[in-house]
């Protein structure tokens, strides 16, 4: 086996040093009836490296993908451009094959990168601090709900249904094992219903969770919500699906959000069929000791030189055990490096361009829609809902589009089980060119 360095001679010598006669003796503490026969597991037979490459290549070739299909899919995962440099950086063994930086002296590469990541995330969201990642957006939202409960010592969580249904489902799940209630406030016209939401807040409310831009791409003013939260002493939690938005529109922190969380996938991480992505998580400095997850801080070494360490670990499971702020241990480390590299390559100006073009593409698409399709109105970032006169027309269009190498949108009911079946959730990024929009519109025309 190519990953096993020992020769049989090595093994014999080692067994002798140990003082046993055979490798089997090393397993004598496992009751005999538990031993399975070598080779008896129902697995495939071993493959050499060439065989594995062939197998995975064949599997990959069996798929359509955003490299050979124009991708108008969003819903929390976006086909943004990933510079080759990002991939190179995270492929370097020194980043790729290191563990969590428990020994800071020989982990300063990871640690300084985390510090830069935290800083850039906090700045992009306009928040005081950010942690070193959560698993994904959905679990980040759930953790935000829990964090708000800890801070407020209240047990009521209000969630807008314009929050991605998957984030809501995970949050609902997490909360369901605890005391308290979770209230979901319906939206209207594929946009957040702020009034209804504000009406749902009371003095027992730990937090109100919204998404901005919301699940349907709608952008709206969070100021009234901030006021309402203040009135009731509730925390305002703002989630997001495509973080690239904040290169263009006002950041959640600017509205006074207490916790901001969502997906960092847009920042240099390929869609990868759903993962690994990354959950970004930011909060106010004053709440930092209630924050879940790892965090990197600045300090000095024995010679007085600046350096970085994981810090505030008294919040964490390995110190605090059942009283920890979260159970998270392994997080999305390498994806922080990907995000940091991406943001470094783009800077403010590049991030603004990505956002501007992502939004402009949607606007061009919507402007060209034929009469038999309507788009949800109001301010939208790079995502909206197209509504067809019937499920049949919609699905005919999807088929026509696929034939033209276009993934035209996500049937809304696929993500949102409550939705009816004549809608499409449609997203655009800077990977969409004018010709792609033209082809999309032609297919729409043809579907009538």
């Amino acid at each position, binding site marked *: 086996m190519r*990953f*096993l*360095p*020992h020769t049989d001679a090595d093994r014999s010598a080692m067994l002798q*040093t*140990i003082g046993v006669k055979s490798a089997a003796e090393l397993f004598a*503490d*496992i*009751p005999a*009836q538990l031993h*399975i026969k070598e080779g008896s*597991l129902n697995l495939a*037979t*071993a493959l050499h490296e060439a065989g594995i490459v062939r197998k995975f290549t064949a*599997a990959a070739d069996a798929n*359509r993908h955003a490299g*050979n299909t124009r991708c108008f899919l969003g819903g929390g*995962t976006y*086909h943004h*451009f990933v510079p080759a440099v990002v991939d*190179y*950086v995270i492929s370097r063994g020194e980043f*790729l094959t*290191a563990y969590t*930086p428990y020994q800071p*002296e*020989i*982990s300063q590469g990871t640690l*300084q990168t985390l*510090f*830069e990541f935290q800083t850039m995330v906090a700045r992009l969201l306009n928040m*005081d601090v*950010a942690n070193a990642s959560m698993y*994904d957006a959905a679990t980040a939202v759930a953790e935000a709900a829990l964090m708000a409960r800890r801070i407020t010592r209240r047990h009521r969580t209000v969630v807008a249904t314009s929050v991605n249904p998957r984030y809501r489902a*995970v949050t609902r799940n997490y909360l369901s094992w605890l005391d308290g209630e979770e209230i979901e406030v319906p939206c209207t016209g594929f946009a957040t219903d702020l009034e209804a939401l504000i009406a749902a807040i009371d003095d027992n409310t730990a937090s109100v969770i919204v998404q901005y831009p919301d699940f349907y791409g709608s952008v709206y003013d969070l100021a009234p919500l901030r006021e309402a939260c203040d009135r009731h002493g509730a925390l305002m939690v703002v989630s997001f699906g495509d973080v690239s938005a904040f290169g263009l*529109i006002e950041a959640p922190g600017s509205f006074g959000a207490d916790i901001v969380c969502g997906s960092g996938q847009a920042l240099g991480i390929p*869609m990868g*069929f759903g*993962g*690994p992505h990354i959950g970004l998580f930011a909060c106010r400095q004053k709440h930092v000791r209630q924050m879940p997850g790892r965090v990197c*801080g600045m300090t000095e070494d024995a*010679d007085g030189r600046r*350096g970085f360490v994981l*810090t505030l670990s008294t919040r964490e*499971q*390995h110190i605090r055990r*059942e009283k920890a702020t979260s*159970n998270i241990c*392994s*997080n999305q480390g*390498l*994806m922080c490096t990907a995000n940091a590299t991406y943001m*470094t*390559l783009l800077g403010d100006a590049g991030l603004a361009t990505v956002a501007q*073009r992502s*939004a*402009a593409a*949607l606007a061009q698409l919507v402007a060209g829609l034929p009469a038999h399709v309507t788009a949800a109105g109001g301010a*939208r970032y790079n995502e909206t809902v197209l509504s067809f006169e019937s499920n049949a027309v919609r699905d005919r269009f999807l088929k026509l589009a*696929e034939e033209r190498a276009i993934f035209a949108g996500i049937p809304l009911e696929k993500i949102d089980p409550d939705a009816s079946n004549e809608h499409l959730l449609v997203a655009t990024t800077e990977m969409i060119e004018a010709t792609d929009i033209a082809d999309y519109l032609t297919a729409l025309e043809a579907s009538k």
Partner: protein
Amino acid sequence: MNDTRYSGVAGLMHEEPLLFERAHKAATSISLPGVEGDTPAALAGFARKQAAGIPGLSEPEAVRHFVRLSQWNHGIETGFYPLGSCTMKYNPRVHENLVRLPGLAHLHPDQPEATAQGALALLFELQEWLGEIAGLPHVTLQPAAGAHGELTGIMMIRAYHEARGDTKRRIVLVPDSAHGTNPASAALAGLATVEIKSGADGRIDLDELKAHLSDEVAAVMLTNPNTAGAFESEIVEICRLVHEAGGLVYGDGANLNALVGVARPGDMGIDCLHINVHKTFSTPHGGGGPGAGPVAVNEALAPFLPMPRIEKSGDHYHIVHEAANSIGPVFGSVGQVGVLLRAAAYIAAFGREHLHKIATDAVLNANYVLARLKDAYHVPFPGLCKHECLLTDEIQNHHGIKTLDIAKRLIDLGFHPMTVYFPLIVHGAMLIEPTETESKATLDHFCDAMLEIARDCEAGNVEALHEAPLMPVRRRLDETQAARKPVLVWQD
């Protein structure tokens, strides 16, 4: 400072300022695709008023920045990494290429199922393989890491009891040797944890266990081999007792590397097990993650598995989102796909013929290290170990040297230290896990270094130990200062 018998040597590296100190401009030179067009008028009122303050670097500068930073890290590719409980094994390079195939990397999770059959087939096969390896046939790939798997498992166990109307089971028993995630996960699932004291041999004490079992116990969470590297030989009896008391047994699979292909948790009576594929199946740790923590369960728990799951009907693979008794989703997609695919490739490379060699070489290596070090270091629980061995600093304490000093001295000699101060059941723990992908030569170098450190302690030759590490770009860092007044972001 530099002992030529060990790899650690002083060399030329590069200081690298923070990005924020380096970059001096708002503009970056990136060029991007996309439509040229105006910002939609409807968004004008929402325009960001102040730029975020993310300094761009040109591509040449960015590459140099991160390449230099990378060189400050120790990785499995640079040297031995015997972090106990972490299973730092070699990460096959070909796996990095596989997950970057455009037909895998650029799939959208919600693209039509028919257009992603290749990916679904690989994931389904992995589900099957993991079930087979665990001896627990029903698998969810959703959990994002081990701790997340624990949470998922405990949720399922709770759902199981509740579905039976057995609602007063609100306690999870956790050995005092358990990893911190175990009690934390139980707490997150709304259950109370009660710690059970390990026996003198570091294993679960059957009497202690019995004393705690009751009709309020939802589950026992155990790790086998345990976090001291010892196999719980009474595992069958333990499971029987728990089951008899109406509870279920949750297995923390972080230590599966000792068993893979040799024995199966399901056969032992464990009901539910997470598998840290970033340990046992060699997906790279990435400086903290991402990992994946699939959970395998038996028939009793199967109805409660989280959704979505991948199923096969005929020749077609589906993502199934709904099931009557499912606890619901725990993650935003089917799982950390890229991580899971690497794990599948690792299993495929060994196959049915060779899979057990992972465990046999891992256990061989740990016992070899133990055999070579057991006279010089205190072994709290003598006897054979499994994939890792536990020592303490008791002997070295007499010379004023503690585990931390030993760890830091190892750094200067070119090794990543072992896990220190875990498990908590011994004082000054040093938990050493060599894994199956290390050569005898490397183990010998490491043992030689450990023995020399022990001799230096005996000889009172301890200055280098107190001062260590001297070689890396930074020496010991002040963690107290960091925690007291946390500086978590850069202020220009």
